[in-house]
C-alpha cells in the first residue's frame, strides 16, 4: 500500500517539495536580512541610539514578503483540499475503487495506510512552513510584540500542523461521505475557513477566563509582552458599567455625569469623577497554553472525522 501511495502521488510530492523549497529560499533570504537589521538595531540601542526603528514594522521586511508570510495561513488547507478531498471521491468517480478493493487487501487497510501517509505529508508540509515562518517572525515579534494576534498566532509554532491534519481529515471524510470530488472540495474549503474564522475571532478569546485590568484614563495601559485583547472600554466608579441611558449624553456608550457633559475635555473630567478604563485580555504568558489548546481542538476534530470516514467505509457498499 505504501508503494502504491507513493506511485500515485510521486509527481504531486515532487511539485509540493519544489514549492516548499522555493518558499524556503525566499523566507530564508528575507529572514537573514531581517535578523541582521535587528541585531544592528539592538547594537545601536545598546549605545543609546535606537532611532525611530521601534514601532515601525516595515523596516525589517518589505510588504511583499510580509504578504507572503501572512498568506501561509492558507498552507494547512492545501494538502487537504488537493489530496484529501479526491482521495476516496476520485476513486469512486472513476470506479477504480472496484479494482483497488478487490485485490487481497481489505479496504480499511487501504484507507488506513493511504490516509496515514496523507496526514503525515500534510503535517510535514505545514510543519516546515510554520517552522520557517516562526524563525522569520522572531525579530518582528520581538519588535512589535504581536505574536498573540490573529494572523500571527495562526501561522507560527504548532497550530498550523494541527490545522493541516484537520483539513486533511475533513477532505478525506467529505470525499468518502459525498462520493464526489467537487462537493467534497467545497465542503472542505467552507468547513476549514469557517472553523478557522470561528476559532480565531471568537473561540480563542475564551480558552481561559481572561484577565481584566482597570486603569487611569489619563495613563493608557499596555500589558507587557504580546497579549490578546478581548474587550476594552470605560467604566464608572466602583468598576460598575453604568446602565445604558441614552437620554443623557454618552461617552463611548457610558452615560456621562452632568458635570462633564459640557466640559471642554471630557476625559480628564471623567477621570476626576472616578471613571476608569478597563482592558480585558489574555496575557502573553498564556501563548503556549493557547497553542496547545487550539492544537488539541483541531486534532480531536480530525480524529472524529477519521472515525466517521472509517465507519462509513465499513458499513457502506463500495
Amino acid at each position, binding site marked *: 500500500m505504501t508503494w502504491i501511495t507513493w*506511485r500515485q502521488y510521486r509527481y504531486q510530492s515532487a511539485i509540493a517539495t519544489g514549492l516548499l523549497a522555493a518558499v524556503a529560499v525566499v523566507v530564508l533570504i528575507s529572514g537573514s536580512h531581517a535578523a541582521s537589521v535587528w541585531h544592528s538595531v539592538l547594537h545601536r540601542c545598546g549605545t543609546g541610539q535606537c532611532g525611530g526603528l521601534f514601532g515601525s514594522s516595515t523596516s525589517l521586511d518589505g510588504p511583499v514578503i510580509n504578504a507572503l508570510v501572512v498568506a501561509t495561513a492558507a498552507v494547512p488547507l492545501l494538502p487537504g483540499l488537493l489530496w484529501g478531498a479526491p482521495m476516496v471521491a476520485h476513486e469512486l468517480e*472513476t470506479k477504480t475503487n472496484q479494482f*483497488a478493493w478487490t*485485490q*487481497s487487501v481489505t479496504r480499511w487497510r487501504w484507507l488506513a495506510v493511504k490516509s496515514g501517509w496523507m496526514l503525515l505529508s500534510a503535517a510535514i508540509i505545514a510543519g516546515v512552513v510554520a517552522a520557517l515562518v516562526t524563525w522569520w517572525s522572531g525579530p518582528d515579534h520581538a519588535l512589535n510584540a504581536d505574536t498573540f494576534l490573529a494572523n500571527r498566532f495562526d501561522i507560527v509554532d504548532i497550530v498550523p500542523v494541527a490545522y493541516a491534519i484537520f483539513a486533511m481529515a475533513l477532505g478525506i471524510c467529505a470525499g468518502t461521505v459525498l462520493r464526489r470530488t467537487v462537493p467534497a472540495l467545497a465542503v472542505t474549503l467552507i468547513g476549514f475557513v469557517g472553523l478557522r474564522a470561528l476559532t480565531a475571532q471568537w473561540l480563542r478569546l475564551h480558552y481561559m477566563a481572561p484577565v481584566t485590568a482597570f486603569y487611569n484614563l489619563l495613563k493608557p495601559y499596555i500589558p507587557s509582552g504580546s497579549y490578546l485583547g478581548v474587550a476594552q472600554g470605560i467604566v464608572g466608579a466602583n468598576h460598575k458599567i453604568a446602565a445604558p441611558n441614552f437620554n443623557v449624553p454618552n461617552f463611548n456608550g457610558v452615560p456621562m455625569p452632568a458635570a462633564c457633559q459640557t466640559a471642554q475635555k471630557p476625559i480628564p473630567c471623567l477621570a476626576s469623577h472616578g471613571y476608569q478604563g478597563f482592558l480585558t485580555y489574555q496575557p502573553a504568558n498564556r501563548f503556549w497554553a493557547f497553542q496547545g489548546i487550539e492544537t488539541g481542538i483541531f486534532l480531536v476534530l480530525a480524529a472524529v472525522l477519521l472515525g466517521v470516514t472509517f465507519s462509513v467505509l465499513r458499513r457502506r*457498499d463500495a
Partner: protein
Amino acid sequence: MSAAIETRGLSKRYRKVTALGDCSIDVPEGRISALVGPNGAGKTTLLRLLSGLAAPTSGEAIVLGGSPRQDPAYLSAIGYLAQDIPLYRRLSAADHTGIGAHLNARWDGASVRVRLSRLNIPLDQPVGTLSGGQRAQVALALTLAKRPQLLLLDEPLAALDPLARRIFLGTLAEAAAEGNLTIVLSSHLIADIEQLCDHLILLANSQVQLCGDIETLIAEHRLLVGPRKDTTAIARSHTIVREETTARQTSLLVRLNGPLVDPAWSLEEPNLEELVLGYMSQNYSSRGINTELAQLSPIGGGR
C-alpha cells in the same frame, strides 16, 4: 463436485427498489456460468454481492466455502472485473502489475507480461491511451494474475468489437483450461458466450428464472409449433413458459414434466438463445408491459 457458489434467498434492496430478490443459485466448481438477463435485472448486483463489494439486505451467500467478506484470504481467491473495466488511466499496465504485486500475496506478474506481449499490447503506455479491447485484455490479465479460484466478470464484452470479443473469450477459455477455475460471466450477448459457457443463470426483474447446466436445461424444454388451437391439454401436464399465437399458428416454449408425444405439434429442442429469450419475454408479457416488444422475437417462428 462441491459448489463454488451457493446462495439462499439473497436479496439486495436500495430504499424501495429491489435490485435482487430472493436469489437462490448453485454454481458447481469448475463451471463457466453465463449470467444473463435484461438491463437492470440484477446481474451487477449479484456479482457485487459475490465479490464482497456490497453486503446483502437479507439472505446469505456461500462462496468458496465462506461468506463474501473483507478478509485477505477471501479477496485473494476472487478475481473481480467490474463493468466498464475501471483501471487507473494514467498508469501503465506495468504500473498496474506493480500495484498487484504489492496488494496480493499470491501474484503472477510474469503471466501478465506474457499474455500482453503475445497480443502486442504495450506494457509501458498509460492504459488510458489503449483501445477498449486492449484495456479489457489488460484488466483480464491483471485479474488472472491473482490466480483466483473464482472469476467474476461483469459485462466485459459490452464495449468490445467482435474481434476483440473473440480474443477476450479465447483468453478466458485458455485460463479455464489451465486450472481449477470457476467463472461467472455476465453478458447480454448470448450468441457470443454460448460456445464458452456450460452453465446458465438467468435473471429477470430481479428474480432468478433459471439456473443450471445448459445441456440439462435445454433437454428439459421444447419448442412446439402447430396450427392455432387450444393449449390447455399441454398446460395440464407441462409448464408453458411462453405462448405466442398468430392468425394461423401457435408457438410455445414448454418446460417438460415428462414425455410429450403429440402428433399435432412439431417438436424441437430450443437453442440457448431461444431458451433465454423465451423466459425473458415471458417476463415482459406476464407483467402486462411491452407485449409488442416481446413479439419482436417470436419463438421458433421462422424455422
